[in-house]
């Protein structure tokens, strides 16, 4: 299910004195099986853009075509589309509303009028995908969950609708390092094993560098940079100019480069950085 966006513009509260233009002439395409990170400063329009991908918002001008369907077409099956393009919201509290975890995850499948056994199967699969044990968590009260578990339940609720594209809107915000790591592992597995296209919106450059294959940088409602993850993070000066942080590992490597160390490229995670530094160190030893 490819997504094609062309000349998309959008303003909130259009036609009122509070009108605010959020997106300016955005054009992009996302192909099947990609892992795209959308990054940008706060209020840059990341969420607004992503909500166009599953027709929660429809373009005021320009067009969004998902799997060949124009989202602004009044006859398009938007409900079906929204199930195929899953959206996990920033704050799980807006999404979770049932009494127990199982009931909440079953909400999506139930809306599709499936049989009880089918629903149960989907719930169990979705819970397994996010690493929540079915027997332990199915009957558990939503409000007894930790922050990380809530996020995972929210993701499972969307996965139970069997999406082909999964949009994750800043799902690691406010989690402790362990919860964050758990969510990231879940996301990585969904992409690698289930081959789900993932659109990952984040404020954290470290996470984007670690997970994404392609990165789209949005600034003030415009596409600032779009390319392979390594190419994007090479342009650290430009990223800093719009107020974004650079991943820690790249910071370290850049500092070493300034002192004369030579590296083949920039690292995207800790492991790569360690390898780069170890190799450079060994080479220097050999030279001596």
């Amino acid at each position: 299910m490819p997504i094609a966006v062309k000349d998309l513009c959008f303003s909130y509260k259009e036609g009122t004195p509070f009108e605010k233009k959020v997106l300016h002439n955005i054009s992009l395409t996302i192909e099947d099986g990609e892992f795209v990170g959308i990054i940008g400063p706060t209020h840059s329009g990341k969420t607004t853009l992503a909500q166009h991908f599953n027709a929660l918002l429809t373009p005021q001008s320009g067009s969004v075509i998902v799997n060949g369907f124009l989202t602004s077409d009044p006859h398009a099956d938007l409900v079906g589309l929204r199930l195929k393009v899953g959206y996990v919201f920033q704050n799980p509290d807006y999404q979770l509303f049932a009494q127990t975890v199982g009931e909440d995850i079953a909400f999506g499948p139930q809306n599709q009028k499936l049989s009880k056994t089918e629903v149960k199967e989907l719930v169990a699969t979705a819970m397994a995908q996010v690493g929540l044990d079915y027997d332990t968590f199915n009957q558990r009260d939503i409000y007894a969950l930790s922050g990380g578990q809530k996020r995972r339940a929210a993701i499972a609720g969307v996965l139970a609708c069997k999406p082909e594209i999964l949009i994750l809107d800043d799902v690691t915000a406010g989690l402790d390092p362990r919860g964050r790591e758990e969510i990231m592992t879940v996301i990585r597995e969904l992409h690698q094993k289930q081959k789900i296209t993932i659109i990952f919106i984040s404020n954290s450059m470290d996470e984007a560098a670690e997970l994404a294959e392609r990165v789209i940088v949005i600034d003030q409602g415009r596409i600032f940079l779009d390319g392979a993850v390594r190419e994007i993070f090479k342009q650290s000066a430009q990223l800093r100019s719009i107020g974004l942080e650079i991943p820690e590992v790249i910071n370290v490597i850049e500092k070493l480069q300034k002192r004369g160390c030579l590296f083949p490229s920039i690292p995207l995670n800790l492991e790569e950085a360690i390898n780069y530094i170890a190799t450079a160190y060994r080479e220097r030893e050999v030279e001596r």
Partner: protein
Amino acid sequence: MELTKNITLGVYLPGKSFIHRLDPRTKIIASGIIIILLLIIRSYPAYGAVFLFVAAAVMIAGIPVGYAFSGFKPMLPVLIFMWIFQLFLYSSADAETLFSWWIFSATDAGFHMGTLVTLRVLFLFGVTTILTLTTSMVSLTDGLESLLSPLKAIGLPTQELVMTMVIALRFVLILAEELDKIVKAQMARGVAFDRGNFIQKTKKIFPVFLPLFIGAFKRAEELIIAMEARSYTGGRNRTKMKTLHMGRVDLKAGLIMIAFTALIIYLILTTVPPI
């Protein structure tokens, strides 16, 4: 999907117009007078005069006309329902029947009653909207508090009451924003809010209200903590950073209001009500 777009109640539109510069007390009293007049008026010429007055106020305040009207949109179904109700159910002894349908018959008295009641509601809402659009929350609170302060003598906690009222007004927009997020989260999981019959549609509302109420309670609690953290203790011994002053603009507005009230009373006395 944007739920907050058409909400004009409790929204403040900053500006520097004549109406913006008025003392909040002037505006509240003026709105009060117009509301009382609206409850007495029963003839079209008088409504015409109120319309001109309100339209002039909208122009002077610089409120975009389209925006002022957009606030009525969500009320439209209720107003139409009300009008139809009056049309068929209100009747008087000498009423002329316009047309009949099944056991209902529409009379001219019903027609006039429906129109008058609808106009009344429209203008009541319009006047309140102008007041809140041109008065910031802070000055609205100060104005109301100052107007109600005589009641302190009989032990009424005016400051607390006003604070509660203003917070409630402010929460209209906040809750609408939360509702927007919740509705979107459920639409993303396959709920079609615009499909199905009345019962099916109503059923879909319940899962929306649960998180909304929980969110509202959470917010209320956070607000309490934030207020207490800044040592809010209610009305006793509170002083104001900005004290209210009536000025020349208020005198002008007062004179205009007296003239307008006189005109309306004249119209009420001289024109014959349709029913």
